[in-house]
């Protein structure tokens, strides 16, 4: 028994050592930069590239940073990406998109998930001690930003809606660079309008449990308000966490008059449940997010609106962080204002095919395009252009830029 115990301990320690050593490989030769090195006074190590312009291409869309090329001698930076990077398609796509920037920007990214019981603040402390140059986080906390500031580490938040009151407080920290996120309110308004235009008058809403996600709550609130203002009626609301299938069955049984359903998030299981309950041909559906079955349901006329494209938000927020890491420039001058991005809105199967081809598995922005958004590398670039790029995000925008 004693021998087995000793062997077990040794094996466990070997596992720790091996995994830890693997994790450290990428840091070989790196030393933790002093906190001062990360501050706004940091000198740019590479010469700015040739200025580029945002021009209109033949198709009428904007070309970002035409002719801009990232310099090949950018200083090495280490970035901590805090959020969720495994599991759902959106999360894994964030990681894939960011990985396209590693070599062009000469950066190293440590993806860290704040799992259950692990405080965001603890993770921030640990990565700061490890010597990161910047943090890009899906979430935020005032204390976390405060800790990062003590180490001189800048922080940008993406895909999270922060109230104006909280933003004012966060902007009081020099290292807080701002928030880049999707406009959930506008997306839900457009969805309500599309469903109303498609003939929906009595709609049921199914969503994630209230309070778990501000973004989902904004979608629900905005949809209800807009749909009612158009003259429609919300006949049922169900916020049963992820048990959408049960919600669909219950509502279908209790509200036969229903002619539409709105979902704050979508997955294939929802489409299966809609089919099982015999709702195809009876109700129209509007939703956020996509799944593989969406094309079929656009084809049969059930799905009239779907919003997506959040996978490109993280890499589009990266220039905000890189700009500060590079030469201490705030890309977002007024950090109390959120930079909102439009959702990509899809109304039919043709658009969905394009979405799959150009957006769903694509970073949507090339490293050169993102580099051109860094004023230190492209002195002519302005915040107004950055704001416009985010506001212009659409399937046409991505296709036009892809067409060159």
């Amino acid at each position, binding site marked *: 028994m004693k021998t087995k115990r000793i062997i077990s301990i040794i094996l466990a320690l070997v596992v720790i050592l091996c995994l830890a050593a693997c994790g450290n490989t990428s840091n070989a030769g790196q030393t933790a930069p002093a906190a001062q090195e990360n501050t706004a006074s940091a000198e740019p190590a590479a010469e700015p590239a040739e200025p580029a312009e945002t021009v209109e291409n033949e198709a009428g869309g904007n070309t970002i940073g035409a002719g801009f090329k990232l310099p090949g001698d950018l200083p090495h930076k280490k970035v901590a990406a805090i959020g969720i990077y495994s599991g759902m398609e959106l999360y894994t796509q964030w990681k894939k998109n960011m990985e396209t920037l590693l070599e062009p920007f000469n950066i190293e990214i440590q993806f860290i*998930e704040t799992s259950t019981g692990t405080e965001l603040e603890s993770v921030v402390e640990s990565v700061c001690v490890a010597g990161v140059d910047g943090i890009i986080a899906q979430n935020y906390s005032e*204390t976390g930003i405060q800790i990062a500031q003590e180490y001189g580490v800048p922080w940008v938040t993406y895909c999270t809606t922060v109230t104006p009151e909280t933003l004012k407080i966060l902007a009081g920290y020099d290292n807080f660079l701002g928030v880049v996120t999707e406009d959930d309110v506008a997306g839900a308004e457009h969805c309500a309008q599309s469903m109303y235009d498609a003939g929906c008058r009595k709609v049921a809403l199914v969503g994630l449990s209230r309070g778990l996600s501000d973004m989902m709550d904004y979608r629900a609130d905005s949809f209800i308000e807009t749909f009612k203002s158009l003259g429609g009626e919300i006949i049922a609301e169900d916020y049963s966490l992820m048990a959408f299938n049960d919600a669909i069955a219950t509502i279908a049984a209790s509200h036969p008059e229903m002619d539409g359903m709105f979902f704050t998030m979508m997955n294939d299981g929802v489409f299966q449940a809609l089919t099982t309950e015999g709702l195809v041909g009876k109700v129209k559906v509007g939703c956020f997010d996509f799944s593989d079955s969406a094309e079929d349901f656009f084809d049969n006329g059930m799905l009239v609106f779907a919003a997506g494209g959040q996978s490109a938000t993280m890499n589009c927020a990266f220039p905000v962080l890189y700009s500060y890491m590079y030469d201490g420039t705030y890309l977002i001058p007024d950090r109390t204002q959120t930079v909102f991005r439009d959702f990509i809105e899809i109304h039919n199967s043709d658009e969905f095919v394009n979405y799959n081809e150009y957006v769903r598995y694509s970073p949507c922005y090339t490293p050169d395009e993102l580099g051109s958004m860094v004023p230190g590398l492209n002195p002519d670039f302005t915040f107004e252009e950055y704001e416009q790029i985010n506001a212009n995000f659409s399937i046409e925008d991505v296709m036009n830029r892809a067409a060159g």
Partner: protein
Amino acid sequence: MQDIVHETGLDIDEMLNRKAKRRELLMTFLPFCGLALTVIILSVVTKGLLLKPENLVNIMNQCFTTAIVSLGAAFVYAHGGIDFSVGASCGVAQMVCIFLVSSKGLPLPIGMLAAIVIGVTCALIVGMASYWLHLQPFVVSLCVRSACAGILIAGTNALGKNIRVPLEIFGIFNNDTVKIITLVILIAITWYLFEKTSVGKTEKAIGGNRTTTWQSGLPIGRNILYAYLIMGICVGIAAVFQMSRAGMVTSNSGIGIEFNILIALALGGFPMSGGASAKIRSMLVGALTITFLTNGLIIAGLAMEYVNIVKGLLFITVIAVSYDRTNLKQVVFM
């Protein structure tokens, strides 16, 4: 029998006593050895960053909540109880505290007192239901956890979702000196109660053998409630410190503490079924080990999913080797 005594010069009792003493000695030092090995290995891997003074302060901060709740949880686990509701009740305690202090403008001590009352109430519900209604504490605590999670979501929604904790009021709880003093005082009190008073001794006796304890005339019900009462107080105190550290109270506040307690319990060698070998120090060593492990692996640059794999493997290994299969009872090990 007499032959053995003649050959070895020892009687059976003495042999068994020696074996037991050796095992006890081993059991006492193994958790410390585990902690020391973890620190040494991770120090090498992180090139010394782990033991930088600033990081040691970070580690103190990172294990503070787990350590405080663990001190109280030791009483519950010592008598063979369990409570999965501590995380959610800690969240509710935070919400009530911030509501009273920020929204109602009540003094900070009132808010702290309210947090402790919430922690105690939730813990006592688990304790009373499990003893008087003869329900499994595991089941009751899951019910309380579910109810508290619901209250937390509804409450934070009503109060504005992400409720900011005014650091100008709660900043004192982020002070390292205040934290160290609080921790030392709590360790001293809980150690005294656990090791030197009838409360702690009875808890361990119940965990060791409930029937014998009852036959001895010790008040089982009252002592079980004492255990949950002490844990509730610790949860309330931890709530105030945790909300001050996080800077805001959300629907996720406190969630997950219960799992950290379980891991600390296992890594520190605290017997899962309680009993005489339960020690306060086991919880603290376990809390420190898991904090060093998490902190060190992140500094080493290991992806979070691998950090969780390492934790899981370690957890399974410790459970596997510390389970005494001869009498199907957990014994103190690493």
